[in-house]
């Protein structure tokens, strides 16, 4: 009945169980790995962030124009009207530029929204850098409030020469599900249908 072997059953089982646990953890490790990859290589439309000074420090490329187009999308569950204030702007690479979006809360209560963004074509994403954006933080709108939301950005001089048009797209989502009572108090959201939590 005994079979000669190099390792005991227990040892192999423990190693395999360890591998199982490791792979379960690896599945979770894919989450930060994915974000790191996307940021590092501008994948999935993830764009860079920079500050005003370093944005202009490299000078302006006056030899070409780049058209930046703006689109917007409001997810279901967010009672806002969210639109770009301009269809497109023409910029020189290296030049700081401003754009504005407007959002209006159509609901009878304050609502917290959060925007995500993406840049197309994907190859342009790493060269599209924002110094200021409403998407960096949660946004609160009171009932009926209309708010202008500015974006300040620079298109890097290293943008490949064959890219003449870049599309910046924003989607606004209702973020209330992800706010704690403390966050809501800080943002000044008092829910009309107060359920005692806030």
């Amino acid at each position, binding site marked *: 009945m005994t079979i000669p*072997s190099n390792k005991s059953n227990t040892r192999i089982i423990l190693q395999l169980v360890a591998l199982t646990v490791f*792979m379960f953890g*690896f*599945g979770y490790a894919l989450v930060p790995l994915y974000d790191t990859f996307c940021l590092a290589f501008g994948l999935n439309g993830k764009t860079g962030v920079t500050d005003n000074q370093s944005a202009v420090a490299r000078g302006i490329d006056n030899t070409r124009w780049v058209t930046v187009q703006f689109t917007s999308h409001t997810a279901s569950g967010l009672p806002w009207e969210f639109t770009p204030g301009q269809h497109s702007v023409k910029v020189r690479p290296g030049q700081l530029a401003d754009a504005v979006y407007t959002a209006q809360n159509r609901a009878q209560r304050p609502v917290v929204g959060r925007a*995500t963004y993406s840049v197309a074509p994907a190859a342009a994403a790493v060269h599209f850098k924002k110094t200021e954006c409403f998407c960096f933080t949660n946004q609160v709108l009171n009932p009926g409030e209309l708010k202008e939301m500015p974006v300040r950005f620079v298109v890097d001089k290293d943008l490949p020469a064959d890219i003449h048009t870049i599309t910046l797209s924003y989607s606004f*989502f209702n973020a209330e599900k992800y706010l704690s009572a403390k966050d809501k108090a800080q943002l000044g959201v008092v829910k009309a249908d107060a359920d005692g939590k806030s």
Partner: protein
Amino acid sequence: MATAETAHHEHHDHHPTGLMRWVTTTNHKDIGTLYLLFSLLMFMVGGAMAMVIRAELFQPGLQIVDPHFFNQMTTMHALVMIFGAIMPGFVGFANWMLPLMIGAPDMALPRLNNWSFWILPFGFAMLLGSLFTAGGGPAGGWTLYAPLSIQGGMSVDMTIFAVHMLGVSSVLGAINVIVTIFNMRAPGMDLLKMPLFVWTWLITAFLLIAVMPVLAGAVTMLLTDRHFGTAFFDPAGGGDPVLFQHIFWFFGHPEVYILILPAFGILSEIIPTFARKPLFGYVSMVLAVAGIAFLSFIVWAHHMFTVGMPLVGELFFMYSTMLIAIPTGVKIFNWVATMWRGSLTFETPMLFAVSVVFLFTIGGLSGLMLAITPADFQYHDTYFVVAHFHYVLFSGAIMAMMGGAYYWLPKWTGHMYDERLGKWHFWTTAIFFNITFFPQHFLGLAGMPRRIPDYALQFTEFNVISSIGAFGLGISQILFVYVVYKCIQGGERATQEVWDNPRGLEWTLPSPPPYHTFETPPVIK
């Protein structure tokens, strides 16, 4: 030692009878039988769901079921067939054959073996039970893509827990297989003397351990996103739905090889027997399986070319996917070379094996077409994909299992199956399969999307043909159930070797083998 021996004998000589024998059994042959019968049952359940799908698609417009139920059927058909029919089926083959093939008295961890089987019926009770909850079963596709799956009802939670249970079952089974192969081989059974079926299962078991936990992680993230305020996949909380696809397919691609590698193993046992020649290129076969397993980890994003990946990513996943054709081609050519100038006879197992080599190659080549990124934008989520994966999963995995069942049924039961009915089953299956799925290539190329209960009028003719084929295919499988039943009940007595001078330790045992085999390790030449 003496007490251990006594306890051992007592346990086995007075094992419970009736139902309790099957509930408490730790015998690899009993558990193998349980797995195989469970797989057959799930195959019929999943098949019935496919009949609903094809009945609805028989004509354009909505006739039989409402779209929401149609979506539940496509989702459940896939989940039941993958996790209920194919995976447990192969585990059944492993349980029955691995100890017999390597000269071991049983699996290394018999009690664990009992557990890994008995988790399954509960997992499937939960999964199938979700169909009866308010709002029906899961309807967002078997891939459970977020954010749709985050919005689903209670059935999604039941599916998630069912996937957890099936995952635990698979991982326990895989651990058992690896320990058995590493520690229970008869003296002299070197790794490179093991039959190819054992090799393919060893590698499959490692794949299972590597990726089932990743799936468990993915569905756990779904669960916490749904109920516990995390936002892995919800952009409103800073998550990303595309991330789910990456994690899912990191599991999903090795998973499709989990579904096919043991089939390769079965073919590599059947073909040499009926060609009356040793398997051509044994070592290259082992290396090819290992190569396929390795490549399966670096090709996942070819399932999601259209999500908007950068060009470099698309090229990488395109080329790495195409590389898989090389080890797969090695296997196909080795099987053909095994048959080359062999003294071929075409009993039912061989008919299935040869047709798998032929039809799987068609599925492999349509896979290569899908791997071409620019072309994939046209084929993505069309019936071309449906045709492709049924050619590799039905005429690959399922038909290989049927061949394997005919090949070893005489060994398992001690009776020859009805050869005439077996041949009928083969020919109806092979013909109706092609009538069902070949037209779906054309439908997909013409742009018919998958998972939709209605279609444009120009797709009518091919859908009618496909549905007729599907009904024929469904009815043919009832014949299979009958052949298996008849063989278990009785029939011509099978000899020890069953076939003409087959290779392998299992043929040195009587048919059926006694309840306990190889308690003294066999001598390996």
